[in-house]
């Protein structure tokens, strides 16, 4: 029984509107006069793939032998117009991340791992490095608003071109790379003075809307003699409109990046308050593709918060053809780990996290360029903490694990091909997820917010 008469007793009722997090935000703003900039993606709780479960096979469905029968993961992207579509051994691809945000060593590790598992990796704002081209069998080359380091020779040596309209962490915003990461090599590739706080354009310089995009895509096709698939990447907002417009513009592949998608540096207010969750975005993208009768002609890649084989399987069941992974890939390399490897020994990085004012498990300080584990840095000392061969091995393990989880779930649902996973295999655990994904709430026939028809989309 609390002693209410005790003058020593502490009142501890925390306000839900003005909790410690909000007080910290207000006091930080009043101290600095600048918004917070950080890396990674939305941290707030959101309806996600975790809110869905599979209905495994049983009496009414026939499962595959989990450890014996073959389950294909082969994935082909860019079949609409390109004469050289992308053929992958797995639907799990590596998302676009820039050299600048990441070190050249990390880009090399990504390429090596992607090549080892038969998937693609993607450049980012700031151009293509020789390290990633040489280490990546299949490399997607991004065409961004800034056009930093965008070069016709690299267009020709890419395997596909991805026109970036937006990214899930900041739909409507341009790239950002703070001065501490703009070292001489990064600066030279971007034609910028070293050390400048680089704030990229948010609009493309030479086209403005969907009708112009048609012509821009055609130009890239002409330049590449119609060989290479053209992807169009959008940050998830008005997904249905955007996907239809991108298809109209002639995209071979649509990449939809939900609000959980990561960034190397963006305003927190942007990360947390713009865009819609990946779960809602997939459903809308698939609806748009179906309404234009383009299923099987235009492929859909989903990204933003894909972490596990279950996430991949659910995205595919909802109608995606592939997924792209960014943040989890960095975590596989050691992001937010308490140590890094040096000469085969684990060395604690905890003090370096503390210097950034954070701790392993909480760090989002990619923007500082002081990554304690050598992933999101251009610092010549820190970047040595990630050894490309070791990083590639860890990432290969991670991607293989996801692929095994994916086929485990597909076999349990009776599918010989992961692309045969379907909406009918899923139900939702929460009303919110059910409404966003247009799936029934588990154990009911209730599809909240939809037209009540299961599997309509």
């Amino acid at each position, binding site marked *: 029984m609390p002693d209410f008469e005790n003058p020593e007793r502490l009142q501890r009722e925390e306000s839900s509107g003005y909790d410690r997090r909000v007080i910290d935000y207000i006091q930080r703003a009043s101290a*600095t*006069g*600048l918004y917070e900039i950080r890396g990674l993606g939305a941290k707030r709780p959101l309806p996600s793939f975790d809110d869905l479960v599979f209905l495994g096979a049983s009496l009414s469905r026939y499962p595959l032998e989990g450890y014996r029968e073959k389950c294909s993961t082969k994935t082909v992207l860019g079949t609409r117009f390109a004469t050289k579509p992308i053929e992958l051994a797995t639907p799990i691809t590596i998302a676009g991340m820039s050299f600048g945000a990441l070190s050249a060593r990390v880009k090399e590790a990504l390429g090596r791992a992607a090549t080892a598992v038969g998937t693609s990796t993607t450049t980012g704002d700031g151009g293509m490095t020789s390290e990633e081209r040489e280490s990546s069998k299949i490399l997607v080359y991004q065409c961004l608003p*800034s*056009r930093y380091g*965008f*070069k*016709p*020779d690299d*267009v*020709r040596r890419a395997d596909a071109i991805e026109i970036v309209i937006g990214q899930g962490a900041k739909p409507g915003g341009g790239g950002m790379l*703070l*001065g501490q990461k703009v070292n001489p090599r990064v600066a030279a590739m*971007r*034609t*910028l*003075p070293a050390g*400048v*706080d680089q704030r990229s*354009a948010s609009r493309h*310089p*030479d*086209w403005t809307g969907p009708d*112009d995009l048609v*012509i*821009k895509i*055609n*130009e890239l096709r*002409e*330049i*590449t*003699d*119609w060989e290479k698939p053209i992807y169009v990447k959008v940050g998830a907002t008005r997904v249905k409109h955007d996907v239809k417009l991108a298809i109209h513009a002639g995209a071979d592949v649509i990449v939809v990046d939900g609000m959980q998608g990561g960034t190397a540096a963006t305003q927190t207010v942007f990360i947390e308050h713009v865009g819609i969750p990946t779960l809602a975005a997939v459903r809308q993208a698939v609806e748009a593709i179906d309404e234009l009768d383009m299923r099987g002609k235009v492929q859909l890649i989903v990204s933003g918060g894909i972490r596990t084989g279950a996430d991949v399987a659910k995205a595919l069941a909802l109608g995606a053809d592939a997924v792209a992974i960014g943040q989890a890939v960095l975590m596989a390399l050691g992001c937010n780990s308490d140590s890094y490897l040096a000469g085969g020994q684990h060395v604690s990085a905890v003090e370096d996290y503390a210097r950034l004012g954070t701790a392993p498990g909480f760090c989002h300080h990619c923007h500082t360029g002081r990554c304690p584990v050598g992933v999101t840095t251009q610092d010549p000392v820190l970047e040595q903490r990630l050894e490309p061969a070791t990083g590639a091995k860890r990432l290969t393990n991670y991607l293989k694990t996801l692929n095994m989880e994916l086929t485990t779930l597909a076999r349990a649902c009776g599918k010989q091909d992961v692309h045969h996973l379907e909406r009918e295999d899923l139900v939702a655990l929460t009303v919110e997820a059910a409404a966003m994904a247009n799936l029934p709430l588990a154990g009911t026939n209730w599809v909240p917010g939809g037209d009540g028809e299961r599997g309509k989309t």
Partner: protein
Amino acid sequence: MESVKLFDLAKTPLREVNRYLHRDAAGEGVARVKILNADGAHSIAAGVHVPLEIEIDGHAGYYAGGMNMLANITVHGNAGPGVGENMMSGTIRVEGFASTAAGASAHGGLLVITGDAALRCGISLKGGDIVVGGDVGSFSAFMAQAGRIVICGDAGDALGDSLYEAVIYVRGKVRSLGADARFEPMTDADYAAVGELLGKAGLTHDPKTFQRVASAKSLYHWNSDANQEY
């Protein structure tokens, strides 16, 4: 005798013409190509990466000479948006007017427009040179990073907004400067640069009649006291 390869876009699909320019012209030892009946087609001679003399008869649509490397391209007519976008080298000469975003993001080479250029001429310029015989529209040289733009006529609003290291030389009136752009005194090196670029473009104005616009560099770094007045 130097052979001239002729294409008529009224008869041959653009895809075939561009493919020839990319792949076959060099092998066949062709040095000059003439493209007839441009008729506003988009992406004419985009992605050429061999030294060729290319003449385009008629008005070109979007992205004429886009991403050009090494070729010298002349448009005998007007050019649509994004002429010479992202060019790396070579020369593109428009004997007429150019629409929006002429020379956008060009890394190198020389783009000459004998008439006027519309909005956003030289946007995101990354090292190329642009000479405009007439006026340029608003937001020209927006976020231009490197390279030089010579404007023989007037400039619209917000000239040189958010400039990095590119330099603008303007002869006529400037309706307004963009954020962080400022007039700076001309030096001998600037007069020489203008003279050189005018010479290459075949124009005869007196370099002494040009003003220099460059970045004040106040936007290079975050500054909480700048009040975000841009």
